[in-house]
Structures are given as C-alpha cells and as structure tokens.
C-alpha cells in the first residue's frame, strides 16, 4: 500500500448503538474524553470537523434508483455512525490516531481510508486509454 497521501484520510466509524448501554456517568466521561481528543487533533491541525449520522436513512439502488429500501442502520455493527477527515500524510499516522479514539474502548471499529486525489473512474479510464494506445502503436 502507498503509505503517503496528500489528500488526507477518512475515518469511518462503524458501530451499532453501543452507547445506549452506558450509564450517565460513563456517557459524560466519554464525552469529555472525546472532546479533549478532538480538540487536541484540531489544535495540531490534524483533523477537520467530522459529522455524526442519524441512525435512519434509506439505500437507493437499481436503474434510475427505482428501489428505495430502509436501513438497518441501528443494529448493524457495520453501519457507518459518523466520519472524520484527517489532514495527515501517512496511513500509519492516521491509524495511530484511529487507535487513540476513546470510543473504541466500548467496541466498534474504525475504517481508515485514503481520500483519492481524483475519482478512481478517471484513473482507470486513463489507464485503459493508455493501454489501448500502446496496443495501436
């Protein structure tokens, strides 16, 4: 894997609603930890504001989007609960930041993905065009 990336990394939080099981004290403690964690990252210029997603929504699929189906986004451990974009240059640093996320203590997982400089479709189309060019000359 290319470990350098100038376009940053995206952390995708994949969890069910585990926080429903925490007590008020645990929730407060985790909120404080999260806040301190995120403030430290932004103070060092390493994170841009992230977003949390509601546990509702639909999936659109099929030609012209004719199928619109509900979740599940609440019970599934694979469901995306939110994201954060990191302005760091290596995947090692992005992984280390993911590992320091306070919420992991309660389970769930974080997917670490390099942001693409351009759409992979463009890249692939160019590769194919180049291959065809090589064949024709």
């Amino acid at each position: 894997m290319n470990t350098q990336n100038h376009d940053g990394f995206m952390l995708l939080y994949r969890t069910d609603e585990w926080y429903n099981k925490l007590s008020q004290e645990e929730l407060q403690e985790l909120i404080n930890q999260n806040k301190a964690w995120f403030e430290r990252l932004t103070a060092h210029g390493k994170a841009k504001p992230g977003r949390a997603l509601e546990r509702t929504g639909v999936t659109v699929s099929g030609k012209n989007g004719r199928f619109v189906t509900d979740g599940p986004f609440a019970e599934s451990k694979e469901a995306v609960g939110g994201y954060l974009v990191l302005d760091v240059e290596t995947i090692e640093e992005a992984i280390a930041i993911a590992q320091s996320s306070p919420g992991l203590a309660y389970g769930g997982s974080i997917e670490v993905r390099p942001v693409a400089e351009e759409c992979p479709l463009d890249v692939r189309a160019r590769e194919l065009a180049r291959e065809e060019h090589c064949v024709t000359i």
Partner: protein
Amino acid sequence: MNTQNQNGYMLLFRGNDWLKSLSSEEKQKVTDQWMAWFRRLTDEGKAIAGNPLERESKIVSGKNRVVSDGPFAESKEAIGGYFLLDVASFDDAVVIAQECPGLQYGVQVEVRPVAAECPVASELKHQTQFANA
C-alpha cells in the same frame, strides 16, 4: 422518519466491483456524467463536499485497537466515496441519490441524515431528561 433536517444529508456510494465489467468508453462516459452531476449540484448549492476514496482500507477495532486489512475492497458493500448535501428535506436527498449515474451499473447509494450532535451527547441528554421526568 423525520423528513426535515437542517444539518443536511450524506450520500455514501457503495460498491467497488461494478467498474470491472465496463468497457473503457463506458467508464469514460460514467465518469464524465458523475463529474457533471457533482458540478451541477455544487453550482446549485446543493452539494457542499464530496470525495472519492482510494480502495485501500484498514480497520482498527475493539478495546485492543487491533489493526487489520479492510476486507471489502472488492465487495458490494465497500464505500467508494461520498457527497455531503445541503438540502432541507429527506425527499430532496433521495431524489438526488436517484440521479446517481452509477446506479444502472449496480452502485447503491445510502442516504443518511447528518446528526446535529454526537450521538453519545444526545444519549446523555435523553437519559438526563428521563431521570428528571
């Protein structure tokens, strides 16, 4: 479902393996369509961010913070990119999702309302209200 949301909506594009079956002309066509679609939404003030993601993926999980390779680079569930939409209703967001040029090739678009705050904070508020009731 609450159909109004001031915080906008996120479209998650799922599926990474659909490209393989296309010819280079088809790939070029769908790429151009996708870019034109995003530009139009941006010009209309309906899309405020969007990024494709590289296929590489690592997963950090659990208390022990174990790092593993993302298993889903080729899967239908893999997220290939996202748009962040600034539209006020869920119906508007679904209509935009239905315009996705990848749909006819098997791409699935997940439409999710963006939350006003961290769900951990809303859970605490919920519990506090309940305790005081």
